[in-house]
């Protein structure tokens, strides 16, 4: 069991002893965070003594008498504030005046204990202080974790940008040095490849912005009554353009309107990502079948393609960030590796889930289940 260090500062030995007795065997339980603490009690008979102890090793909780000869409770708090010592301070006072409370609160007192106090009152204040400490530590831990995650993401993004920039630079320098002669048509292929890599980078930047918006929670969500069938119809019109060059047909199966409360942009993002994948990873003259169904308290979107498919092991890791399935069939297909991660995050936002089923060389079906009214 962890323990919290408590320093009792009072010029009356009777109070110090009483506190020590009351708290010696006390276990503070903070069930919300699954934490339990014992208390290690130390005593100081004056402000001077306390200052010395605190400077050596600051306690977690300070039980501080307001009125003492020499350095008073308020003086001590001032000095601790100057030194930047972070300690949860509970002020013990016999004069429960407003003036006292204001002065102590200004100096950052966490709570008050009026003399004389019963052991239960003391314990209840200690519980509050312990809970405060747990919450503070938890917040600090989360902030550290977030910093770490952000750093990881930044280095992955930097790495993801390196390869395409190097490829494009190579092609451009090759043209600059006229490696293939003066005839510009000789450079058709390098130019086409450079454009493809640039498009890939543009998609990466857009996907990153989408992910950042979802993650930060700052994106203003406009949840309205909409018809998912109608949204899908609009998305399919755009996707057909993508499929045109490779003669890929896209059809929608949805009998009736499918009403749902949702943010239109988010539903479009889900559909556009899945439709663009279904086209990209399809075979020439392939098919994409889109289903929009309402049933069982959820809207179910299915996007089935007749494409290259993938192995079960690949399916398992597909929704992770920057996951790209690399093989002979995918080597010339550009992607940021973020699209499906975006789809899954959005599905989770609705309390739903995105799943995949696939057979190599037959096709892949994505299913997104979005509970209604979540």
């Amino acid at each position, binding site marked *: 069991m962890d323990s919290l260090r408590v320093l009792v500062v009072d010029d009356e030995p009777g109070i110090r002893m009483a506190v020590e007795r009351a708290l010696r065997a006390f276990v503070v339980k903070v069930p919300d965070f699954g934490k339990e603490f014992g208390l290690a009690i130390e005593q100081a008979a004056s402000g001077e003594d306390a200052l010395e102890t605190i400077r050596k090793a600051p306690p977690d909780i300070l039980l501080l008498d307001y009125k003492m000869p020499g350095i008073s409770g308020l003086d001590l708090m001032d000095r601790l504030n100057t030194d930047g010592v972070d300690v949860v301070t509970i002020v013990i006072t016999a004069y429960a005046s407003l003036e006292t409370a204001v002065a102590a609160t200004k100096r950052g007192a966490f709570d008050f204990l009026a003399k004389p106090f019963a052991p239960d009152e003391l314990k209840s204040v200690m519980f509050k202080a312990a809970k405060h400490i747990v919450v503070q530590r938890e917040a600090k831990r989360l902030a550290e974790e977030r910093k770490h995650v952000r750093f990881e993401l930044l*280095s992955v993004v930097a*790495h993801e940008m*390196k*390869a*395409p*920039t*190097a*490829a*494009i*630079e*190579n*092609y451009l*320098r*090759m043209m600059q*040095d006229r*490696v*293939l002669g003066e005839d510009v048509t000789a450079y058709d292929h*390098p130019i086409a*490849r*450079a454009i493809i*890599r640039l498009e890939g980078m543009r998609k990466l930047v857009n996907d990153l912005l989408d992910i950042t918006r979802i993650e930060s929670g700052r994106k203003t969500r406009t949840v309205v009554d909409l018809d998912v069938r109608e949204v899908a119809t609009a998305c399919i019109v755009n996707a057909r353009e993508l499929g045109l060059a490779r003669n890929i047909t896209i059809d929608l199966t949805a009998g009736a309107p499918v009403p749902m409360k949702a943010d239109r942009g988010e539903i479009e993002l889900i559909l556009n990502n899945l439709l663009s994948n279904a086209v990209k990873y399809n075979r020439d003259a392939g098919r994409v079948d889109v289903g929009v169904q309402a049933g069982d308290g959820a809207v179910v979107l299915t996007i089935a393609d007749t494409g290259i498919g993938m192995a079960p092991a690949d399916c398992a890791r597909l929704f992770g960030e920057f996951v790209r399935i*690399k093989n002979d069939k995918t*080597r*010339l297909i550009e992607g940021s590796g973020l699209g499906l991660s975006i789809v899954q995050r959005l599905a989770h936002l609705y309390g739903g889930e995105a799943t995949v089923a696939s057979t190599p060389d037959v096709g892949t079906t994505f299913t997104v289940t979005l509970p209604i009214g979540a």
Partner: protein
Amino acid sequence: MAGKTILMVDDDVDFLEATALRLRADGFDVLTAEGQVKGEEVLSAGTPFDLAVLDLMMENPDSGFVLGHHVRRKRPGTPVLLVTGVTGETGLEFDAATAEERRWVPADAVLPKPIRYDQLKAEIDRLLG
């Protein structure tokens, strides 16, 4: 240098293609392999080459390292250039500047990625010279 054959292994098809084009324009013969597996195939086939340029991170973070060892074993004496985008912050920094380093790094030179063609060409000329 003309007439010398270079094996280039990289998982970035565009890096591979652009570099191969330039090397060919400079009179080299170039064998390209997209990734570690393809690289191993070239080695197994026994096609001769005079120098290998290997990307470090391909299918695996140490693909180029493993390939380098295989080049050393199957074609002893053939110079190996390891090209890597790995930087210091990953803790995976190494070089082949000293004899001590070359005892465990299967390369005659380690070059940072992205690399400019003229830098790469200068290293190739040095190692084949």
